[in-house]
């Protein structure tokens, strides 16, 4: 199975849900509407994509949106295991909420918690929406958003002792 055939199979499976397919060297990103993402993800799972490899977010402050992308792949289907397919949606920046995909792919539970603490995107319906790695005070500052400025530390030069 080559990439074109994979694309065709995905478009067939998702039907009218596909908003756009972004293709690059070695990857396919399927973009859907935010309301349809649970439906689209469960259809992808039926197709054979049985786990999520990573969950990533890109912040576009000028366009006032986040792009959330789940990278799904397969363990059981040998043909699909060669590919990683991204399924993504745009989340508005002023109301960062999206439905959780925990009940489609169980493995994204901790990754969604991580996204929650670093970007402040709330996953509605998530069973345990708490910060994962950061201390709660720091998670409130949402450190991976573009507007978070890290305090610059000066480089201190110490004079070597004479004699």
């Amino acid at each position: 199975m080559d990439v074109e055939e994979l694309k065709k199979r995905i478009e067939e499976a998702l039907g009218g849900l596909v908003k756009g397919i972004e293709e690059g060297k070695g990857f396919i990103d399927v973009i859907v509407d935010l309301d349809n993402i649970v439906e689209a993800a469960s259809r992808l799972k039926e197709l054979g994509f049985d786990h999520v490899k990573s969950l990533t977010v890109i912040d576009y402050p000028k366009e006032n949106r986040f792009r959330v992308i789940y990278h799904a792949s397969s363990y059981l289907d040998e043909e699909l295991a060669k590919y990683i397919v991204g399924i993504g949606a745009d989340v508005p920046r002023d109301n960062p909420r999206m439905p959780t995909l925990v009940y489609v792919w169980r493995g994204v539970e901790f990754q969604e918690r991580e996204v929650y603490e670093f970007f402040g995107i709330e996953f509605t319906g998530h069973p345990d929406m708490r910060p994962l790695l950061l201390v709660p005070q720091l998670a409130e500052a949402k450190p991976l958003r573009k507007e978070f400025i890290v305090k610059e530390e000066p480089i201190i030069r110490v004079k070597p002792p004479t004699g």
Partner: protein
Amino acid sequence: MSGDGGRVYVGNLDRSAKRAKDLVMGKLRMGRAVDWATAFSLWPVHLTTSCCGCEFAATWSPRFDAEQHGALPWVGARQTNMILIEGTVSKKMACAVRVTWEQMPSPKFAIAMGACAIDGGIFYNSYNIVRPWEIIPVDVYIPGCPPRPEAVARAIIELQRKIRQKRVVSKWIEEGWRPDKEYVAPKEDPCSWWRG
């Protein structure tokens, strides 16, 4: 001690016997023996904060065998007297480091290992790290990213030299606090996030 053609050198036995006799007869101060004993029983607590822990493990592996210096990693904080900070300390880990430090019985010592423990290393300018010297008093720093096991062994020897030459432990016991180093208290509670 070193093996050389099947022979093992154990030092000057006559001299050691004389010093032991002096000690028992009261001619030598007991403090010297305390310093000597502590220097060869530095037991680091097994708290691995970061990736330098691999080098920490290699240091006590058969090839580098840091146990020959009398140091043996131990699990429980209450049976140890040395803490080896391996690399970065994140804000959540700072709480664990300080709690472990408080649990250890005095006299106790700290070695900070790796570039991250000195000034942040690759995490310089980060929002989620704490420097170890902000939370506990550090005796010896080991530079490197990560330091070789030889460097860790060197730090243990350096700490032994410090203990025996400056008579840190005997003075510590006599005076009740450590005379040659300031007590370090964290400026802000590292566990505040935990208590809510």
